[in-house]
C-alpha cells in the first residue's frame, strides 16, 4: 500500500482526503503502538530485574513498578559474597577463563582448517567437508556420555580441559564452515600474486588472509564467547569444585543453597552475569546482526 501512495504528488494527497489515507495514517500509528507495546512487554521483565536489585526484598515480591519506593544499595555487596568461601569475582574470572580459552581455540583451529578447505586441492577433501557438514548438525547429547568416559580416563574431570581443549581441535565445526565460506569469497588472485613474490602459505594466511577474514573471525569469536558464557550443561557435567564454578553454576548454587533466598542479592548477581553479554552486544551489534543473517545462527 505504501508504495502506491508514495508515488503520488503531495498536492494530490492534500486535495483528495480519502478514507484510505486516513486509514493509512492510522495504520502507521497503529503499527508503532503495537510495536512499542510488544517491545515494552518483552523488555519490561529485564528492566524490572535490574531495578529490583535496589529494592527491599519485601518490595520485590509485591511491586510491579520499575523504580523502588525505597532504595537499597546493599544487595550487590551481599550477593557478591553470598556463596561461602568465594566471591562472584572468582566466578566471573572462571567464566572469563573458560570463554576466552574457547574463543582462542576456536579461532586458531577453525581458521587453519578453513584455509585448507577453501584454498587447497587434496585427496578426500570432499569427504572431509561432507563429514564436517553432517556432524555439524549432530546433537551434542549423543556424544555426551562417551566423551565423559573418555575425559574421565584422561583425568580431566573437574578441570576446564573438557570444556576448552576440544575447541583447539576444531570442535566448533560450525565456524570452520562459516570461515571456509568467507575465504572462498576472497579473490584468488591475491594468493597467486603473493606466491609469485615468494610468500609461504603460512605467512600468507597470517599476514594477508587473516586481516581480510576479520569480520568472519569476529563473528566466530563473539558467538563462541556468548555460547560458552551461557553454557550450563557443560560445566554442570564436568565441574564439581565450587572454586572452579563459572557464573551459571554459581547462580544455580545460589538458588539451591539457601533456604530463604536473599532475592535482591540473587537478582544483583543475575544482572552481573548477564551484563557482559549485553555490553558485548552493544559494542559489536553490527557483527551480531550480520553473523545471524549471513549464517542463520540462533542467537
Amino acid at each position: 500500500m505504501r508504495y502506491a501512495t508514495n508515488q503520488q504528488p503531495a498536492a494530490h494527497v492534500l486535495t483528495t482526503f480519502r478514507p484510505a489515507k486516513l486509514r493509512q495514517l492510522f495504520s502507521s500509528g497503529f503499527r508503532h503502538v503495537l510495536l512499542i507495546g510488544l517491545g515494552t512487554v518483552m523488555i519490561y521483565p529485564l528492566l524490572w530485574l535490574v531495578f529490583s536489585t535496589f529494592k527491599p526484598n519485601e518490595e520485590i515480591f509485591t511491586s510491579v513498578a520499575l523504580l523502588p519506593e525505597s532504595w537499597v544499595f546493599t544487595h550487590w555487596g551481599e550477593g557478591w559474597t553470598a556463596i561461602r568461601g568465594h566471591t562472584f569475582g572468582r566466578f566471573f574470572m572462571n567464566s572469563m577463563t573458560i570463554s576466552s580459552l574457547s574463543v582462542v581455540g576456536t579461532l586458531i583451529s577453525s581458521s587453519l582448517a578453513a584455509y585448507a578447505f577453501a584454498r587447497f586441492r587434496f585427496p578426500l577433501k570432499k569427504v572431509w567437508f561432507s563429514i564436517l557438514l553432517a556432524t555439524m548438525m549432530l546433537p551434542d547429547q549423543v556424544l555426551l556420555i562417551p566423551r565423559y568416559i573418555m575425559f574421565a580416563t584422561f583425568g580431566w574431570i573437574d578441570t576446564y580441559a573438557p570444556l576448552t581443549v576440544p575447541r583447539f581441535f576444531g570442535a566448533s565445526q560450525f565456524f570452520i564452515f562459516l570461515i571456509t565460506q568467507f575465504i572462498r569469497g576472497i579473490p584468488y588472485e591475491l594468493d597467486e600474486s603473493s606466491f609469485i613474490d615468494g610468500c609461504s602459505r603460512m605467512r600468507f594466511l597470517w599476514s594477508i588472509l587473516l586481516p581480510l577474514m576479520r569480520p568472519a573471525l569476529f563473528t566466530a569469536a563473539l558467538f563462541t564467547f556468548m555460547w560458552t558464557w551461557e553454557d550450563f550443561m557443560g560445566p554442570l557435567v564436568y565441574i564439581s569444585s565450587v572454586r572452579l564454578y563459572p557464573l551459571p553454576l554459581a547462580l544455580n548454587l545460589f538458588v539451591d543453597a539457601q533456604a530463604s533466598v536473599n532475592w535482591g542479592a540473587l537478582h544483583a548477581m543475575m544482572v552481573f552475569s548477564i551484563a557482559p553479554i549485553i555490553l558485548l552486544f552493544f559494542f559489536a551489534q553490527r557483527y551480531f546482526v550480520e553473523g545471524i543473517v549471513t549464517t542463520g545462527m540462533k542467537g
Partner: protein
Amino acid sequence: MTNLRKTLQQRRRLAEVGQAYGFLSLYLIGLFAFILWPFGHSIYLAFTNYRFSPNYDYVGFTNFIRVFTDSLSLKSINVTTRYALVSVPLRLSAALLAAVVLNTGIRGIGIYRTVYYVPSLIGGGVAVAIMWRRIFGRRGLFNNFIAIFGLTGQDWIANPDTVRFMLVLLSVWQFGSSMLIFLAALKQVPKGLYESAEIDGAGSIRKFFRITVPLISPVILFNLVMNIIGAFQVFTQAAVITGGGPMNETMFMVLNIYNQAFRYGNMGYASALSWTLLVIIAGFTGISFLVSKYWVYYETSAK
C-alpha cells in the same frame, strides 16, 4: 626439459597435499577423537549396561525396550514433542509477524530490532531461567500485574497444567534471532511484485500469503528445521526452572538423559535415550524436508 617440469609440478602438488593436511591436522585429530570415536562408542554403549565401572555386559535391545516401555521415558518423549510442536510454530509466527511489520519501512526499525533481539541474546542462560521462575511464581511479577485488574493468579510453574506453557512462552520470547533472518529474507523480495499485485486489487493478507510467504519459503524451512532441532534439545530452562516437574510435565528428553547418566549412573540406558532423541530429531527434520516439496518455492525450480 618437459620431464623436469613435470616432476617439479608433481613435487609441488605433493607439497600442497602435505601442507593441506598440515593445516587440517588439528581438525582431523579432533574429528576422530572428539566426534567420530564418541559417536561409535555411544552406539556400543547403548547395547550395554555400562555404569561407569569396568564390569558390564552386552544386553542387546534391553535399553531400547526400556526406552519405549518405561513410563517416565514415554512421558519425556511425549512432553518434549509437544513442547517442540507448540513452541516452534508460535516462535516462528511471532518472528515472521514482527519481521513483516518492521519491513514496512517503519521508522525506528533499528531500535525495535535491538529490543526484540535482546531476549534471544540472553534467554538461554541460567539467569533468565531463574528470572522466569520468579515472574510466574505465586508472588511473581505476572501475578502482581494482573492483581491490578483485580485478578488472582496462581503459581503457574507449580501447576502441571500450565508449567509447560510457561516454558513455551520463554521460548517464544526469544523470537529475535529468527526475526532477524526473516527480515534479511524479506529485504530480498522484489517490491515490484507487490505493486503489480496491488494493481490487480490484492489486499495485504492476500499479498502476504501469495507473494511474501512463497518467496521467503526456503528461509521459513531453514528456520523451521533449526528451531525444531533446538527445541528438542531444551535443557537449561527445565533443569533450572522446574527440575522436570511438576509431575514430570517438563521432564524433557535431555534432562532425562542427564539424570539417567549423571544422577543414577545408567550410562548404557542414557546412551539408548540419546540415540532415540537423535532419531526423533532426524525424523522431524526429515518430515520437514519431505513436506517442504509442497510448500517451499525455489526460484530455479519454477523456470
